């Protein structure tokens, strides 16, 4: 294993899957060599494989995701890069109407992965900072993944490619180059649908995913100094959701905060909070709290984006309140 970034781990995982399985190919805007993608994720991939397997697409998300549906039905395993997760709405019908329903309706399996670089805190404004995962968690027939560590970026990608269903893999742009760690080698799939207890604690559970995992960990450090021990659960997969791990934590802590960078209103946190409030009702010593983005487009200017977005300080404050309940 070599040290690398979150982004390196994705590149490495793509290369490994393409070596392992010749059905895997990459497609998207500007992904081919020598350019290698808006974030350069596919640059090392394009250096390794022929241009038939790392294919530039015109700026036609609806059309080329539609084509990926056909490729997948014929047994290929397309890995589709979007330049930003924000553009996933441009290919919406091909995802939420065709790919998600084909197997249920007539048994046609559509095994692709859409790589969607998501999230903000980079001063990129309303169209390069979105976290649209809730749309897809609500849509039957899609799997949704959101890795937050270098190892998970690698391992969840492997499981996503090997899954027989359409999987949307939300990459965290703020972690791309800032997060470093050991990049796994070879086969190291992390199963879909399994949350990770990132930190054990007995006073309050924080349920989260993506970049917010690291904010929650920072909040936990802060509160530990005050004698409050947070348990941090990183969901890793948003569909299927691992509510068992969450419930057993809440059974121990009796307090829970659900936090994510996506808009809070109608977000994935609502589903998680509602499920906890139902299934863990007798365990709870305080209301299930949520902390997500405000109900506004992600604003650009630093003071506004900071106001929009949860962070370690806000998580710590919310947990303090919860523990004072």
């Amino acid at each position, binding site marked *: 294993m070599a040290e690398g970034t979150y982004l390196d781990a994705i590149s490495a995982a793509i290369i490994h899957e393409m070596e392992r399985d010749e059905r895997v190919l990459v497609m998207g805007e500007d992904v081919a060599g020598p350019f290698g993608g808006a974030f350069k994720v596919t640059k090392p991939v394009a250096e390794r494989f022929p241009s038939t397997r790392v294919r530039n697409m015109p700026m036609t998300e609806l059309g080329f995701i*539609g084509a990926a549906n056909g490729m997948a039905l014929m047994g290929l395993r397309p890995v589709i890069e979007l330049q930003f997760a924000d553009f996933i709405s441009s290919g919406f019908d091909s995802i939420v109407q065709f790919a998600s*329903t084909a197997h249920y309706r007539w048994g046609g399996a559509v095994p692709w992965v859409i790589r969607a670089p998501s999230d903000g805190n980079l001063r990129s404004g309303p169209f390069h900072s979105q976290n649209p995962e809730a749309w897809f968690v609500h849509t039957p027939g899609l799997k949704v993944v959101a890795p937050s560590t270098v190892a998970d970026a690698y391992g969840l990608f492997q499981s996503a490619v090997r899954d027989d269903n359409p999987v949307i893999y939300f990459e965290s742009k703020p972690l791309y180059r800032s997060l470093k760690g050991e990049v796994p080698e070879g086969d190291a799939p992390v199963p879909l649908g399994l949350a990770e207890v990132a930190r054990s604690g007995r006073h309050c559970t924080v349920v989260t995913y993506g970049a917010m995992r690291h904010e929650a960990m920072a909040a936990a450090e802060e509160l530990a100094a005050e004698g409050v021990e947070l348990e941090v659960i990183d969901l890793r997969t948003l569909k299927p959701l691992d509510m068992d791990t969450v419930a057993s934590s809440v059974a121990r802590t009796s307090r829970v905060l659900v936090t994510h960078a996506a808009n809070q209103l109608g977000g994935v946190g609502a589903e998680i909070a509602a499920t906890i409030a139902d299934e863990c009702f007798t365990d709870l010593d305080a209301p299930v709290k949520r902390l997500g983005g405000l109900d506004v487009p992600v604003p650009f200017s630093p003071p506004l984006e900071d106001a929009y977005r949860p962070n370690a300080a806000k998580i710590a404050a919310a947990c303090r309140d919860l523990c004072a309940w």
Partner: protein
Amino acid sequence: MTLDPLAAYRWMRLTREVDETIRNLWLTGQGVGGTFNQRGHEAIAVGPALCLEPADVVAPMHRDLGAYLVRGMTPERLLAHQLGRETGPSRGRDANIHGCGDLDLNIIGFISHLPQSLPVAVGAAMAFKLRSEPRVAMTWTGDGGSITGLYAESLNLAALDQAPVVIIVENNQYAYSTPIEQHSANPDIAERSEALGVVAVEVDGNDIEAVHKASRKAVNRARNGGGPTVIVAETMRMLGHAIHDGFEYVPDHLLERWEARDPLTIFEQRAGEHGTTIDQLRAIDSDVAAEVKAALVVAQGSPFPDPATVTDGVWAG
């Protein structure tokens, strides 16, 4: 593949018979939900499908009952599908002719959002090309479908890759109630298609020999690495868009003109030229009628899906 006239007639007659059977069921309250009309589209659906090898793939739409039949979806299964039975290809999950797919028959089921079958067929063709398989993908869309953005995106992709795909545009001159001049500023679909970089040809959509000939050429071109072809086939839908449609909007004179050009009628008028006899055709008619009648009995006797299975099949694998 040259066109076997008796086979061609048989498939068109079977299409008509299944369509009329469905229509009668629905008009007498024995249907489930709604259903589409096929009348007038028999030659367009059957002719191109007859040009394919079993390994080729089709992605038909809502007016292509004939293509499903030619590809081996039996009347029994099609009727069971429309009646929401467990024995249909969607096990009661999808409605009327939507989602009527079966990969064992190389049929891709369609969704309502038009023309979603188009990029899917293009992608299938891209897969064939990538793997150097001598296979062809074929799909159908309407005049309404031809003015969508997805039509342009799909043709461009097909042309860029020189993918082995054949696209039949069923120009029945209406999208639901809207005549083509009202939905397409340039109603010349072949011209619009050609401008996107594909070969486009026009053909009489009610003449199965013409449609078959153009399709055969296109399929051969695709299979030999010559890339995509669009075949614009002119026709007229002779009944409402779907079973509930009052169909007041197509002028009578237009319907009369096209009634005289019914695909089965004009084929029959040429029976002599084909070396077939009217008696042979009538024999097919009664064979087909008996076949569909029997299929209906089986379909109607088939079970509905067990509600306990409602979540089965959401996930593959």
